[in-house]
């Protein structure tokens, strides 16, 4: 049964149905999503986190949004008039809510827990929203709330374009502020206290209700004003990121850790590390078209090199400065790339993906093994790695190390750009476009792929070196296949072959999930959903490479 609920929510076939049937169908889809959300345990977990203090929890918000979307879609049907559209939305909302009611009733009436562990009385209690568990009142209120939320969704869709957009902007602002409470709260802490102690914007978990209302109207007003201005200038209100957007983004990347707390700096640091790796893989995959799932191996080579050279622990083979170890790490990673690259690069496409996956796993298993543990520490890793020193300063805090990673990322971006616009970069692109033709033009495919692979590996080695210095210890557990998959996903989400895309991808896939770290058990579930959704909505990535964009406009 559970599988049917999961799959049925995806079966969106485009058949002509009567509007009412369509509304019921949408309601059922939303209901299935709600039930799945509850049954995987996400509802209970997220119910502990408030978005608006004492008013709305994260799971309630998510549920409301699902129904909101269903109502929005139900009312979008162009065939029906406003009242009919609103009625459709209400129906969809009622149905969706009713699905949850049925779930609550089932939980209490039948023992589902032998199969579905999350179908607990606690879940039923949470879904009863304060009423007596599974009482008539509790069961009846869910469809009503659903209908209301769907109605709002429909209304927002039926508003004049500007107003609707403003409402959505306001909503988005409140949700963002509530979700990323920790970031904004830490920023506010650094500002002089303007609002006074009794008017705190944030409670212990989320926005305070008053602040939420104020924020909603502020953001909505801002959106309205911006649209007006844009219209006045004769432009179409733009969506998506533009050149000023890029400048803003970079400014944010550079400055954010300064105005918030160590945690944000730490996350930014991880984002910068993944950017480094992403740019390495971008050379391999984005430019040369080599799918590499063993990328983490070079990250490991860099990290272990620094660990062995800079540790004061028992396994150290030297105790030199980080600045000496860094180039060594980069060179060794590059050499490793060359050694692995040579044999595997004659393989193409998915085969290459599997061959590199195999190589990455081989490296991990070897590093972990008892056979090599006298040299690499096995599962105990290498500890007591010194932090880098710069003019007598020990780069120890997340902020300092973040800037170290950022500077390296800048250098790597510069090198990438230079190479892209040189003979070798053109050769890579040509190889990606049509390997046979490129070869017939005199490009040695193995040599140029090998160079791409080597350079990519070198960048990953640099990331690994910083990683070791940041954590102060390295363990084989940090070099799982997941890291390679993460980097690959960053590239695809950001836009293959696009440097700004790497930045955006790293922020979206590494930065945002980190801020929701407390829901770690659902991290990869949402990660998976995000990957799939992204491919459907915007397969070319959030910030596609310039030429791809040009192509879209021109054709």
């Amino acid at each position, binding site marked *: 049964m559970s599988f049917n609920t999961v799959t049925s929510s995806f079966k969106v076939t485009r058949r002509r149905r009567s509007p009412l049937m369509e509304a019921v169908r949408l309601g059922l889809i939303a209901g299935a999503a709600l039930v799945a959300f509850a049954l995987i345990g996400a509802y209970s977990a997220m119910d502990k986190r408030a978005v608006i203090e004492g008013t709305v929890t994260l799971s309630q918000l998510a549920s409301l949004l699902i129904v909101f979307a269903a109502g929005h879609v139900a009312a979008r049907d162009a065939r029906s008039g406003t009242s009919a559209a609103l009625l459709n939305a209400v129906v969809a909302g009622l149905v969706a809510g009713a699905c949850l009611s049925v779930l609550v009733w089932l939980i209490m009436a039948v023992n589902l827990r032998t199969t579905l562990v999350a179908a607990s009385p606690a879940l039923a209690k949470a879904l009863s929203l304060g009423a007596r568990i599974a009482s008539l009142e509790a069961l009846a209120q869910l469809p009503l709330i659903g209908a209301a939320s769907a109605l709002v969704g429909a209304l927002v869709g039926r508003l004049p374009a500007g107003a609707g957009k403003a409402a959505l902007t306001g909503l988005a602002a409140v949700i963002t502020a509530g979700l990323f409470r920790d970031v904004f709260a830490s920023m506010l802490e650094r500002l002089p206290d303007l609002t006074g102690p009794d008017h705190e914007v944030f409670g212990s978990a989320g926005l305070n209700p008053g602040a939420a209302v104020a924020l909603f109207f502020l953001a909505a007003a801002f959106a309205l004003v911006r649209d007006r201005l844009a219209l006045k200038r004769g432009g179409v209100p733009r969506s998506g990121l533009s050149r000023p957007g890029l400048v803003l983004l970079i400014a944010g990347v550079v400055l954010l850790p300064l105005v918030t707390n160590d945690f944000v700096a730490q996350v930014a640091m991880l984002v910068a590390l993944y950017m480094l790796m992403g740019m390495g893989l971008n050379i391999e995959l984005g430019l040369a078209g080599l799918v590499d799932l063993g990328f983490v191996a070079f990250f490991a080579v860099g990290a272990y090199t620094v660990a062995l050279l800079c540790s004061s622990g028992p396994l150290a083979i030297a105790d030199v400065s980080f600045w000496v170890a860094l180039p060594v790490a980069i060179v060794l990673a590059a050499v490793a790339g060359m050694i692995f690259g040579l044999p595997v690069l004659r393989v193409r496409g998915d085969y290459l993906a599997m061959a590199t996956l195999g190589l990455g796993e081989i490296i991990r298993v070897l590093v972990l093994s008892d056979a090599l543990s006298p040299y690499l520490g096995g599962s105990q890793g290498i500890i007591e790695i010194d932090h880098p020193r710069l003019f007598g300063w020990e780069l120890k805090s997340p902020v300092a190390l973040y800037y170290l990673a950022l500077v390296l990322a800048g250098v790597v971006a510069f*090198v990438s750009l*230079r*190479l892209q*616009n*040189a*003979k*070798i970069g*053109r*050769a890579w*692109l*040509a190889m990606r*476009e*049509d390997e*046979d*033709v*490129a*070869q*017939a*033009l*005199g*490009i*040695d*495919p193995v040599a140029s792929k090998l*160079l791409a692979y080597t350079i990519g590996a070198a960048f990953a080695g640099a990331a690994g070196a910083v990683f070791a210095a940041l954590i102060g210890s390295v363990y084989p557990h940090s070099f799982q296949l997941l890291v390679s998959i993460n980097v690959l996903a960053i590239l695809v989400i950001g836009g293959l072959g696009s440097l700004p895309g790497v930045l955006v991808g790293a922020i979206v896939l590494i930065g945002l999930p980190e801020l929701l770290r407390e829901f770690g058990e659902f991290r990869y579930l949402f990660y998976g959903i995000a990957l799939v959704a992204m491919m459907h909505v915007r397969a070319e990535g959030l910030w596609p490479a310039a*030429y*791809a964009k*040009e*192509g879209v406009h*021109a*054709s």
Partner: protein
Amino acid sequence: MHRERKDAPLLQVRGLRKAFGGVVAIQNVDLDVAAGSVHAIIGPNGAGKTTAFNCITAFVKPTGGRIMLAGERIDGLPAHVVARHGIARTYQNVRLFPNMTGIENVLVGQHRRLRATFWEAILGTGRFRREEKEARERALHYLDFVGIPHRAQHLARNMPYGDQRRLEIARALVGDPRMLMLDEPAAGMNPTEGRLLVELIERVRGELGVTVVLIEHHMRVVMAVAERITVFDRGAILTEGTPGEIQADERVIAAYLGRRSGQTGPAPEPIHAVPAAIPTLEARLA
């Protein structure tokens, strides 16, 4: 360093054979292309012309036989090494780098001419910049040479078909080949474009001194530019000679006619083209 004697064959093919599984595509192909000449290969569809091309440019590995360019064996070498010996080609169904611009396509064609190293590129040294600048100028020059100077900044995939063909020729020429191999360059062209193509091929041979081998169905074009013609039929060479000899050869006409009756979709042009080409040829010779 490779100075070709005008009379010596630039390309020598001996006993070339290629089989795909059990199917023999070509066999016993002997071919001599004189340096500085324009040599056409004609024949009905499926006669093995493109397979021979692919063997010469190392796109496929020959099953037997040997290929020599200016006395050096090139069969069995990887395609990029063959390219470095000085063979450039175009493709029956244009194969550009669709997501790269015109100038980028031509720049890729200069790959083996450019000397700046990887480190020079990263550091942006003077030599690198000079070379890049010169390469761009050269690329523009060749775009101009083939007649599409205005396409430099367009994505290859957005260009009209005729321009794509020209771009492909520019990309092949820019690497200073000794021999240019054109696979049906006039396919899909109207008579005007065909004439321009003839002119272009003449200039390639005349101004650049590049030997040209072409596969072509448009007899008008073939008879206008070729000095020698090799006729393929059913995987083997039927005959070889000057345009005049070929036009007089009964077997050639029979081969075309014979194929025509047995085949569903051959090139419609040849039958009418063979006689119609004669005035053009005479005009050229005069």
